């Protein structure tokens, strides 16, 4: 069973790819900016996560040449990845809403 940190990271990656295909570095930047530094991960830990997603066939990768002429491995969604993201967002929203209610009730 993947740890909650791993799951969170997976979700973030999938969400980032929702905006379009990216190479590894290209995924790091939005995650850091979007989460406004709330989720701080070492940039390196992204790669085992990507590898995990790739083996689970949630993302697919292809070597491409970037506009500035560099060879980079570009990741994009698979159909399964899209479905997983939808499900994860839903359960996350449900959880967040549930937690929110509990917190309000408690206060």
């Amino acid at each position: 069973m993947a740890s909650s940190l791993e799951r969170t990271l997976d979700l973030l990656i999938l969400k980032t790819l929702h905006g379009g295909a990216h190479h590894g570095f290209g995924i790091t930047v939005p995650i850091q900016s979007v989460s406004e530094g709330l989720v701080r991960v070492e940039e390196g830990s992204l790669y085992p996560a990507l590898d995990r997603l790739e083996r689970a066939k949630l993302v697919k990768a292809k070597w491409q040449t970037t506009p500035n002429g560099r060879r980079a491995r570009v990741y994009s969604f698979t159909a399964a990845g899209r479905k997983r993201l939808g499900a994860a967002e839903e359960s996350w929203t449900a959880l967040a809403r549930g937690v929110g209610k509990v917190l309000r009730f408690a206060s």
Partner: protein
Amino acid sequence: MNWLRRLIHHRADEIHEEIECHLEMRAAMNAEMGMPPAEARSRARRAFGNAALIEEDVRRIHALPWLGSVAQDIGYALRCFGRSPGFTLAAVLTMALGIGAATAVFSVVDRILFRALPYPDAGRLVSVGMLAPAADTNEFLPVEAYLMFRRRQTPFVRMASFAFTSGCDLTETNPVRLRCTQVDADYLTTFGIRPIVGRNFTPGEDVPGGPKVALMTYGLWMSRFAGDRGIIGRTLAVDGQPITVIGVLPRDFELFNLSPTDLLVPAVLLPNQSGRVVRAFGRLKPGVTAGQARAALAPLFEESRRAMWAPFRSGASLVVRPLRDRQVWTVRATSWTLAIAVALVLLLACANVANLLLARAAGRRREMAVRQALGASRARLARQTLTESLLLALGGALAGCSLAWALLRFFIAIAPDGITRLDQASLDARVLAFAAAISMAAGLFFGLAPALQAETNVRAAGLVRHGLITAQIAGSMVLLTGAGLLLRTLWSLERVPLGMDTERVVAAHFVLSRGYTPARSTAFFDQLEPRLNRMPGAAAAAISDSLPPYGGIMATPYSLLNVEGRPRLPEGAGGMAGYRTITPGYFAVLGIPILRGRGFRQQDRAPGAAAIVLGEALAKRLFPHEDPIGKRMFQSPDGAWHTVVGVAADVRNNGLTAPQSLEYYLAANHSLGNAAYVLVRSPLDPQAVAKMLRTQIAGLDASLPVDVQTLRERVGKLTETPRFSAFLLSGFAGAGLILAAIGIYGVIAFQVNQRAREIGVRTALGATPSDVAKLFLWDVGRWTGAGLVLGLAASLAAQRLIATLLVVARGNGRWTFVAAAAILSGVALAASYIPSRRAARIDPARTLRTE
């Protein structure tokens, strides 16, 4: 290994490039933000974290975990082997010997014992018939009985029969002698064979006056008609008769008795053909066994027996047996014996390698302990030793297959004719799969001991080692006694008195073609005789219709040999008596002594002369207390008597093992029908005589195929099969003996090394060298003794099997067992002597100092 590397490392190399790419991008971004290049780079690294660790994580996931560690195990094992080439070579060669011999023998016996016959659902095909020992060694059915069986049987889907295969002439341009086989119209359907071109016989084709049709074998179709499909419907002239070709048989078609044939023609079977017999077959209904079929046919058999010719009636029994048994009965026992012998050799080889590995494992205990201390699990270490064993087995298998290939060539080269299906044996996928399977099994077998022993105590390991020695001695004992018994039997067989002098006699055999009319064949024999007598260097010459010591003797019921003035014997009493039709020179050529009276003279051949010469056994039986010479006996149907003119010494007629049979001789008048043996005794070189004989016969008929051999060769053929088995078994016994010797040597040498310190102490305390040597010899003696006792028990069981190989395994072979035990003890002592002596010479000062 490159592909393996690529498989494991492909993704891992990618991750490396990807990380580099990431770092460069981040560095470039940092640089854009105004950092100096060096700082931009180091910051990028810091933000990334431990790149090497991440790379390693991904790499480990992708290098399939088991594959990776298996590759590691293999690599490690190969390095270990490289460090001890002597051990590796010994182990691989030992395994190669075991696996090679086993594979070669399997490739031969597989065809005989296991592989499916080339008929669909062949397990349901049975041979049906009566076995009358006086008539034939195989079951047959009189035509009348067959037709009755076929009409009224219940256990079979269908029955079929084979009448005979005989020479026939294709009398077209380019005439050629073919083999025509007569079968009934149901033969192919019963066996489940379909013609590849054209059609099968139809029921209307095996009746009298039916259309003349034939099916052609694939071989003839290809060789003579170049596979032309237009052959169907064509008319061939066979023996001057027009026959229409209706079909071509499949390529793998074979007759039930594996004899070669060219044409199948329908046999016309009628109930009134008394004296004619067929080989009958049935396809069992599903779920019916051969035993049940036999029971179901028993009433029919009883009924047909009543109508049978009296001499057959008494001994005849009903036989229903699987087709395979019918085919390979004579070589079955040989096959099993060889298979068991070779399995023993393989076990001996395994035991040897197991011992080698055990010894090595003991030497590596320290290494294993270190590896365990460094975190290797016990399972992992066991797997490592098992990997090594399997690698050794694999090496042995590769070398063994090459050895098997060579051995198989060798078997085929030295094997006598008539070993069923030997010519088909080859190292095909099935045999190689067998080799792979036994190698794996062997690897697991001899690898298991050291793998499990890695942890257990020294005493248990010693017990296993000694147990293996005991097993080796026992196995060798079985092989040695088996070979010994066979050799003894062979020896006695080759000394069976034949009753004739086979030296310097050349025999030629021929069968006149069907084109010979009776007049023409009489003319042929009339001209042949003077030609033989005029042959330069021929001391004596003769013609006869058959030859001792085996095959093809004519026979009459003993009850027909009535003596003048005595009441006729009851019909069927006394079995059969064989007879030969011979020319006067026969006794001289074969050196058969005339005990009383005389042999034949020319005047005995005149029509109406009717002289008879009795064999000694027959003479004693017919005239126990009187002189047979001049007696009149054996009345022909027309009332004429034969006069006894002489008594000849007995000659072996039924091979070397069957009991001696009764025999008499008749003088040949001038034709011997269409087949005969020509015999010439000459002091000249047999090759030259053979050549002259051929020339003489060719002078009469240049197209007549003649089979020439010396009588010695002919007699030698009788012992070829036992010689072959004895030779192979001796080879295996020799191999087993060598393996056992190596095994004992190895174990003792190892023990001497292990106990060097103990020996040093003993010597220091006053043990003499001979005390030390005795210590080891006593050890070997005990375990060898146990092996001998076990081996003796197993050998006694094996002796029964050997006894089925050859009818005579005379006596109980006590001396064979004693000799085998003596040889093994000798070998065991010799093998342990060298290391024991080394032990005795151990210098206590030096051994104690090394500690």
